[in-house]
């Protein structure tokens, strides 16, 4: 019976990989976007532009 176990592991492993990849992709993109937002705010401050202060980008 147990010899089918490796297929089960393969199945669950793939699921974990795919779900993990989806979450990871979103977290990484979220990080890069917040970094970019902070960068732009700095440029705005340095240039002394009026630009309304964007509310602090919300955490996940």
């Amino acid at each position, binding site marked *: *019976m147990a010899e089918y176990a490796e*297929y089960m592991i393969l199945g669950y492993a793939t699921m974990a990989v795919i779900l993990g990849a989806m979450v990871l992709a979103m977290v990484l993109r979220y990080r890069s976007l917040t970094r970019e*937002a902070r960068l732009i705010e700095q440029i705005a401050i340095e240039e002394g532009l009026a630009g309304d202060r964007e509310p602090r980008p919300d955490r996940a």
Partner: protein
Amino acid sequence: MTYSVPRDRALKGLTIAAGVLFVLAMLMDFFYVGPEKTQGEAQRIFYIHLGSFLGAFIAFAAAVVAGIRYLSSRESRWDILGLASVEIGLGLSGITIITGMAWAKPIWNTWWTWDPRLTSITIMWLAYAAYLMLRAGIDDPERRRRFAAVYGIVAFASVLFTIIIIRVRPDTIHPVVAGPTQADPSGGFDVAGRIRDTLFFNLFTFSVITVTLVWHRIRLENLAERVTRRKLDVLSEL
């Protein structure tokens, strides 16, 4: 469109709930139910195979609603819902396909058979991969949203055939969960109680996971749009 605090908290709560449910589901899959007599350990993949398919189905159904609502209201938030649900749906149906293959190997000792059910899931996956290709191919944003909405609605037809084909085609060697099958013409759920509990729990868990992932993806897209708009304003004023 910044988020009010209550919605922030609701998403955080949902994310935690999804995580807890996921862990519980995994525990149930492995410990609560023993190996099934004929298929052995491999039978456990069945829970996530079906769970991920239900999640994908919910996501693609949401994309149809998003498409219809966008075409009637032309509000971009519906388009963002469409994009988010298709992307999440693609990931989940990817799990369905691969777990299907992993399950096929021990039972039918082949990684892939041209069985209508497996084929139609793959067709569905390709149809929604084409959705993303369409979005990438059209430059004008307004037209891209309109075409994505139209395609999202029509592509759902391939999802319907995934389900219909198993009913129409008696020769499918893919066991049918609900409804009459070769092995058990009486139909309905005669699977042992534990298996049924685990299955329903997995279905519920994957639905919650889908909603959470789609919601996060929407917020991500909103953030991306806000950042690009802000970038345009700031850079244009330099």
